[in-house]
């Protein structure tokens, strides 16, 4: 579960014809000359699932990874999980911070590199949130709502709610009055806080961090339900590449991040403790949900 819903200007249907906004266009331009050379930069994909569109964070992360890999690292940002996942599966990018849901969905074609450690554990929760004064304490209370999802490939921002409804034989289209995707957990909070949506499915980690960074937004929402603990969105690479030198360096770099000043700065911005190695079994509960909703 990668980075923040920021440069989300490209519509899904038409993305190749549209430019990436601002800083990302700059990053792409910097990378372009390198592509022409034989030595291709390491491409690290980020999904818009985490915190902010903070360029400071992106710069710090790129600087740290470049040093860890001892070579140029290019951060690849896309609006949706789908785009990053398909590029990762196709080997177009070297590694990516993805969500547990696509990791489980493409389990056979992906390898686990590292899992973030947040508040001492490698798991997180999905939250259902509603307006600060809205009633309700469970998913069933949200019937008929205008509901905001994060991303159709997000575990916490879609799959958990979808699976929760599937348990009672409901589907989002019929249970909710209307649903829409915001392609970013922060946007789910914004949608609910503004009243555009009456409720939303959001990443618990993102919501908790936003209570520190943007309390005026989260204070207008209320968590009405929390899921069980599930594997934190991992950093993954294509199957079979785990032993490659660059991936090994990435893995070591992520593990040592907490011991490095620049790494600490990145982790500080992300409010994470560090990265750890983990067993794919961490994502079993997500796999169970995938099975429940019948998706592959």
């Amino acid at each position, binding site marked *: 579960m990668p980075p923040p819903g920021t440069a*989300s200007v490209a*519509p899904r*249907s*038409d993305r190749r014809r549209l430019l990436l906004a601002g800083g990302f266009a700059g990053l792409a331009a910097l990378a372009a000359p390198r592509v022409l050379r034989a030595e291709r930069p390491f491409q690290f994909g980020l999904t818009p699932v985490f915190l902010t569109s903070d360029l400071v964070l992106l710069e710090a992360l790129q600087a740290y990874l470049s040093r860890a890999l001892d070579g140029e690292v290019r951060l690849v940002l896309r609006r949706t999980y789908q785009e990053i996942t398909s590029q990762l599966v196709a080997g177009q990018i070297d590694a990516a911070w993805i969500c547990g849901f696509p990791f489980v969905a493409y389990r056979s074609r992906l390898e686990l590199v590292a899992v973030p450690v947040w508040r001492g554990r490698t798991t997180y929760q999905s939250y259902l949130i509603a307006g600060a004064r809205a009633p309700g304490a469970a998913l069933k209370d949200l019937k008929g709502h*205008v509901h*905001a999802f994060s991303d159709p490939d997000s575990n916490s921002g879609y799959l958990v709610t979808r699976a929760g409804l599937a348990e009672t034989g409901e589907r989002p289209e019929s249970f909710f*009055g*209307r649903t*829409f*995707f*915001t*392609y970013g957990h922060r*946007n789910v909070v*914004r*949608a609910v806080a*503004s*009243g*555009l*949506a009456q409720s939303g499915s959001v990443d618990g980690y993102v919501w908790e961090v936003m209570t520190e960074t943007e309390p005026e937004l989260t204070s207008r929402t209320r968590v009405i339900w929390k899921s069980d603990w599930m594997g934190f969105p991992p950093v993954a690479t294509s199957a079979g590449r785990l032993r490659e030198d660059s991936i090994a360096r990435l893995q070591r770099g992520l593990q040592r991040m907490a011991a490095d000043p620049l790494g600490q700065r990145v982790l500080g911005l992300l409010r994470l403790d560090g990265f750890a190695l983990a067993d794919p079994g961490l994502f079993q509960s997500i796999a169970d949900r995938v099975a429940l909703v019948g998706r592959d």
Partner: protein
Amino acid sequence: MVVIFMLAVSAVITHAVLERLRETQERHLSALSTTFLEGLASAVLPYVLREDVWEVFDAIERNATLSVGFGRAFIVITDERGRTLASSNPLDVPLGADRASLNDRFAASQLLFVDAGDGKAHARKILRYQDRDIGRIFADYDITHLVAERRNVLTTLIATNAFLTLCLAALAYWTIRRMLSPLARLSRHIDSGAAGPLVPIDLAGTGHHDSEFARLFRRYNTLVEALSEREELARQLAAEERVASLGRLASGMAHEINNPLGGLFNAIDTLRTHGERPAVRTSSIELIERGLRGIRDVVRTVLATYRADRHLRPLVPEDLDDMRLLIGSEVRRKNVDLGWRNAVVGELALPASAIRQILLNLTLNAVSAVAEGGRVLVDIACLSAEFRLVVEDDGSGLSPAAADVLTGRSTRPLLQGEGAGLGLWVSQRLAAGLGGRIAVETSAAGGARIVVVIPLPEIAEHRDVA
């Protein structure tokens, strides 16, 4: 008047300025709105096409600020059926809310209208894609600051105009007052002249030595001096007339005394020659006595007339008959047929000397007006409440100028020509002083008929009636 005019002018100017300001504000707002909505439309168009609620909302969120001073616009974006896709305040206008009515507020092709009452301007933009309506943007701008600006301008204009109007009105009042102050001064002098002597204006205090008013003052002073000289002249003439009439009187009196003198001397001679004869002596002494008595009467009458007493001595019939004696010499000299009727009985509460003077002057004037052997009628009567004196003759009548002097239409004595002298003038002044009036008519005999009527004081009237 000036103030009302200036208030009207300032009201018109204020209205014009405000109207102009309103037009400018709305033109400015319209241009801003068009630019803003064009930008927003191009941002949201693809999302409206796909009904991507979040992106439409996000675009509104990022674009809702119109420009400096307008704050955040309230924006509603609907699909082509008027259902809300997103609004800048979803709590008020939630997703899916029917807002087709927003469109009905606009006239056919209208893009912006201003509702100054609630401090809002309403704009719309029709979203078109390949010549097809796919939705609409409605924006409500907060224009309270524009309304406040208008109100400030209005307040400022009113305050300024009121201040200027008051200042100019005060200035105008002061200026006109200052301009007219010489006239007021002249008016005061003329008024005081009516009540008393005319006084020249002191030019030293005017401060307008070369102005039109200074010239006016100088002309007025010249007039006052001319009038003063004329009055002085009239006084001198009156004095001279008095001397002249004294001469005539003395001459007449000498005549009156001289007439019997011859007889007296004859009587003395007769006495000297035939005094021993008792009959002669008796008749001569009687003759002398009659002559002396006549002389005594003449002297007494003159003394009574010119005693210069101005105090009120009641008039008695004898006072009037005395006058017949005084003019006797003139009457006889011109062989005038004098008709004399004095119907006054008893005392009248009128100043004897003034009445006698009037009677003497008018009678002498009539006698001098008739030809040798002419006829003069004097009729004195006391009617119920007035004393009436009529003098008529068969002369050639009074000239109009002389008649004017006598009736008081002209206030100055005639200095030359017929009726010249102060006799008529003095008579008029005396009669006027007693509250009476003099009328000049034409006598049945052909000459002038002068009627003097003097009202009797009430006490006298009672006495008269009694």
